């Protein structure tokens, strides 16, 4: 198990290397630069600024310099925002995005798992059918459509919640973004759990447990839930990645100052080091999440052998 984890973590290094090198080259061959603006600078001034940031060194030297900085935890300066470094911009945005993502995942688990379990226990009932219809709608409506519609209903028509902004992280500001992020996820989870649980409940070991007189609650929560959660666990990896990346759009809709906003602004302004820094953070998060899901998988399914 430990060895498996170690191998996966080692695997992350070439991945990160690839991500950074690729995006570094992409950014540099793209037209435009951080200092091209409507009012062009004097060529000598521009050359001086570029020299200050080492932007006119050969590209491979720049790449090596960037790597050297990265290993020491230095993500480089911001080329566009004065007084900011890439790390300080990311430190400002990341907690906001993470908090949003955590809430979204928590809410979708709290909503999706009971809904799926209930539907599996009462397949074909009225509740089951309405839950499943709601979940289909939740899956089909993209979150950048859901979000403005929610804003229209709750903020504009009924004036219950703020239209956008982060408000220093107050709950009222979080409700709509979290709802838009978690509804599709909850729908997916519910459907997934329903189908896997129906299958598990039909298995022999459940019949044996019933025959032995095990209480219905124990059967449900101890015997049936764990194996039913296996497909859910394997779905959670991509799902969490989806929440993290989906939050880019949601951050835009609600004008939330998260890392997605930092990334897009950086890309638009050619703020090279900020974009690279944000990509490093995202790639690391994805790798860590995949590791966590692997672990959860092994805990839930004893058949999974990890060498």
């Amino acid at each position, binding site marked *: 198990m430990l060895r498996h984890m170690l191998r996966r973590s080692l*695997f992350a290094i070439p991945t990160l290397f690839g991500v950074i090198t690729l995006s570094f080259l*992409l950014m540099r061959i793209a037209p435009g630069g951080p200092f091209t603006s409507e009012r062009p600078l004097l060529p000598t001034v521009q050359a001086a600024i570029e020299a200050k940031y080492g932007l006119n060194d050969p590209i491979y030297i720049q790449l090596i310099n960037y790597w050297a900085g990265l290993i020491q935890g230095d993500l480089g300066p911001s080329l566009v925002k004065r007084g900011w470094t890439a790390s300080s911009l990311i430190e400002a945005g990341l907690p906001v995005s993470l908090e949003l993502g955590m809430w979204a995942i928590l809410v979708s688990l709290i909503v999706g798992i009971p809904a799926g379990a209930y539907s599996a226990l009462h397949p074909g009932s009225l509740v089951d059918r309405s839950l499943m219809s709601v979940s289909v709608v939740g899956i089909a409506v993209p979150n950048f459509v859901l979000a403005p*519609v929610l804003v229209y209903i709750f903020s*504009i028509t009924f004036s219950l919640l703020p239209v956008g902004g982060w408000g220093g992280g107050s709950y009222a500001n979080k409700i709509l973004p979290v709802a838009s992020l978690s509804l599709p996820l909850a729908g997916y989870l519910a459907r997934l759990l329903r189908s896997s649980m129906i299958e598990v409940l039909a298995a022999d070991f459940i019949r044996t447990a019933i025959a032995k007189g095990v209480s219905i609650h124990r059967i449900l929560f101890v015997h049936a839930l764990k194996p039913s959660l296996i497909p859910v666990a394997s779905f959670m990896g991509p799902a969490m990645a989806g929440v993290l*990346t989906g939050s880019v759009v949601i951050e835009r809709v609600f004008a939330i100052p998260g890392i997605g906003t930092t990334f897009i602004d950086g890309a638009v302004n050619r703020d090279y080091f900020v974009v690279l820094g944000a990509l490093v953070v*995202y790639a690391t998060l994805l790798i860590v999440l995949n590791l966590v899901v692997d672990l959860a998988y092994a805990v839930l399914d004893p058949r999974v052998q990890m060498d």
Partner: protein
Amino acid sequence: MQVYRGVSTPRMRIYGTILLAIVLACAFGPYFTGYGINEIHWDYVDHPPSFSEGFPLGTDSNGRDLLTRILHGGRISLTVALAATLVSLMIGVMYGAISGYIGGITDEVMMRVVDMLYCLPFIFFVILLAVLFGRSVVVVFIAIGAVEWLDIARIVRGQVLSLKHKEFVDSARVLGVPAGKIVRRHILPNLAGIIIVYTTLTVPRIILLESALGYLGLGVQEPMASWGVLVADGARVMDTAPWILFFPAAALTLTVFCLNVLGDGLRDYFDPKTK
């Protein structure tokens, strides 16, 4: 014919018909609405839907007929999605087939590369490409197609692995058929079902991805507008003119929903186990 009968449940027929209607409307509708995509009517800015005035879905904030814009937007969204799906299919099928058929160390290396690419934050690459290389349709669909091929590569590889030791493949090999021809003539035709299912499920994913890009202002540019751009435009003025948000949103959601239903139905037919 047999496949058609198996797939053709009432549910599939209903949603298939709706989808066909949407596709036909987007393809031919713009010729019949009587307005150009960028035809501006200053007297009818933010005009609510009204048949008698000649704007059945109203007008947008620039006084353009919303129905015409939605139909044009559908053309763009659907075309981009189809083209990007084809790009990803071509890359994915070739990659998966080669990896699975050759096997051994080649397979190992090629699949490790796929594993690695799975760890990339893809939407960021698409955003990066769209920002850096201009906001044209071509860039958008190449960017999306190039990152969406991983799933199909894995699926095709798995299928090829299980097919390549079947008797009919062995006999072709014994008869001296070259490897490329075996893959093309004997293995790929067996994957048709899976490829069809994958295509129907990928198209809606790409529609959503492209619309999200459009929403962020990184998709195709004015006066062209995909559904995502129209939703974004609508979201800006929803407090005074909600129909500008609701109609494009409905068109987008309905199309994605129909495609998902069709894809699920096809999957149930070709692979009853996953039902």
